[in-house]
């Protein structure tokens, strides 16, 4: 899924696209990796060191190694960024990278997503799934409210009957239990 035309090595990045300056947001990724590594180490230290004849290594070794590697890679990445390294954002048919990120849409999508996660067991998939589809279509800029509601309800009813009842997939009926 990764973009195949991205730069090949740290050095060639400088060769091909020097004029754009550094992508400083990458330092945020370094910080995240360092924090994650520290968290993994701390969690690893909290695991009791249990070894036995059949398991001389115990459960602690791998988390500790991994945590250290995360911290090391965070440092290496920071060096790469400082030297002007950058990853190429993924392109795609519907992706327009000339504009900045549209955070409003992303936040609305996350909102619709969370609503579904919170309501799915209480109200059931048919209702929460309809809300999810309607909400995400709205977030993405579609303003046919009634038509979208019809599509959303049809989609969640169809998936419920086809998958939950037809194929035995786990989907909750929620408040509509006994009605569907």
């Amino acid at each position: 899924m990764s973009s195949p035309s991205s730069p090949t090595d740290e050095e060639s990045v400088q060769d091909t696209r020097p004029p754009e300056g550094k992508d400083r947001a990458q330092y945020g990724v370094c910080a995240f990796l360092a924090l994650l590594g520290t968290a993994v180490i701390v969690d690893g230290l909290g695991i009791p060191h249990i070894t036995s004849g059949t398991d001389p290594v115990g459960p602690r070794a791998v988390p500790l190694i991994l945590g250290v590697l995360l911290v090391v890679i965070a440092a290496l990445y920071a060096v790469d960024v400082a030297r002007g390294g950058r990853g190429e954002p993924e392109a795609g048919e519907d992706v327009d990278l000339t504009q900045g990120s549209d955070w409003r849409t992303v936040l609305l999508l996350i909102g619709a997503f969370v609503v579904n996660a919170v309501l799915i067991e209480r109200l059931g998939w048919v209702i929460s799934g309809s809300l999810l589809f309607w909400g995400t279509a709205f977030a993405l800029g579609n303003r046919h409210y009634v038509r979208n509601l019809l599509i959303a309800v049809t989609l969640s009813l169809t998936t419920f009957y086809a998958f939950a009842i037809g194929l035995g997939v786990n989907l909750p009926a929620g408040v509509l239990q006994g009605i569907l």
Partner: protein
Amino acid sequence: MDNLNNLMQGFADVVAPMNLLLALIGVVIGTAVGVLPGIGPAMTVALLLPITYGMEPVQAFIMFAGIFYGGMYGGSTTSILLNTPGESSSVVTAIEGNKMAKAGRAAQALATAAIGSFVAGTIGTLLLVLVTPFVVDFAVSLGAPDYFALMLLSFIAVTSVLGSSRIRGLISLLLGLTIGLVGIDAVSGQQRLTLGIPQLADGIDVVVVAVGIFAVGEALWVAAHLRRRPAEIIPVGRPWMGAKDWKRSWKPWLRGTAYGFPFGALPAGGAEIPTFLSYTTEKRLTKHPEEFGKGAIEGVAGPEAANNASAAGTLVPMLALGLPTNATAAVMLAAFQSYGIQPGPLLFDREASLVWVLIASLFVGNLLLLLLNLPLAPAWAKLLRIPRPYLYAGILFFASMGAYAVNAQPLDLFVLLVLGLLGFAMRRFGLPVLPLIVGVILGPRAELQGRRSLQLSGGDLSGLVGGPVSYAVYTTIVLALLWPLVRRFVVRPLRERSA
């Protein structure tokens, strides 16, 4: 001969009317979802995996085989008609394919892709039948140190050989290994990185990871940069080829197959290298060099065949060793695991009927795909016009449904969202996705094999080296790691001196 009997039994199972129907459904929805822009084969398989959860394993895998090839073919349709490869493996197909479509030869491009995929898929699956038993015989003799070495090789391969930047590949791999660490340690029963949340004790399901990173991450990423003007789609009639097109296509199909299968079957293979090799070969051998760059049919026929043959090839290490080498195989491996089946050399003994049904379904699915896609191509092309808000709303809808269905717990939806945001960030910073998925799947198993190796040596690190395979693999790893240094200090100075 025993395998032939098994395969025949597999065919007998698949052609039962109900199973044939499932194969047909798999091919249709696989293609339909794969055609949708922005959805590559791996995402197709990940999104559709949960719908098979209520089925018996045999039925599920029959459907799955259809989804697998359907998703592959759907992806090449998108790249030809939109010039937008869903996955790096169809990048090369898009080069000439889209040029052909723009020159009014979309029908021929789709036809040579469909028939070439069929030819390559059939030959590839045949080779799979022939080669896998040997790999299994060989794999049975491997010990824990050999497996550990092979898994390390997979890690190195996905991060540095195929990836664009080693550091970024490694970051992705380490993130995957960290996700794979979450849960109860299989050996000692200790909780690791579970944050005290009981639902995390079983670990984060690979399907949730794949759907989160592929589907939710992609939807969020596109949503943040949605092109308001829809991309231009080339109208297409029913695919057909004239005698001249056949004459120009059949050799590239066979050559592409010859490139694709071996690369796919290597534990460090993939589809990028063989599709590219096929393209350059056809460009060199063609009698119509003037057409290359303007839509030469050889440039579609060869790479598309290489792509499909490589997909069949990846099933060899996936089934025989339990090693996934591309994203689609990684998700397939997750599908096996969700049924409590562990691919590897013992699979052919323990689940023989299942494996042969799967292989037979690959043949059947491939044939169904050809029969279906030649007449239905114009209908698939219409799917490209789906309004983008509905497309991405639909992706999030099915992603949520699938992730919930895995364990029926709402917490998975929050995990899915977090992983989706991670997928978003990875797309923003150009971190490749495949190493993460491979890390999640192979990480826990590599740890297990490593600990098993050290158990034999009583904790001494020398236990990690043992068996001929581990020596060969470690040599390969060292060479792969040293290659950039060699290039920098040996190859480049030499070239500069000669220049």
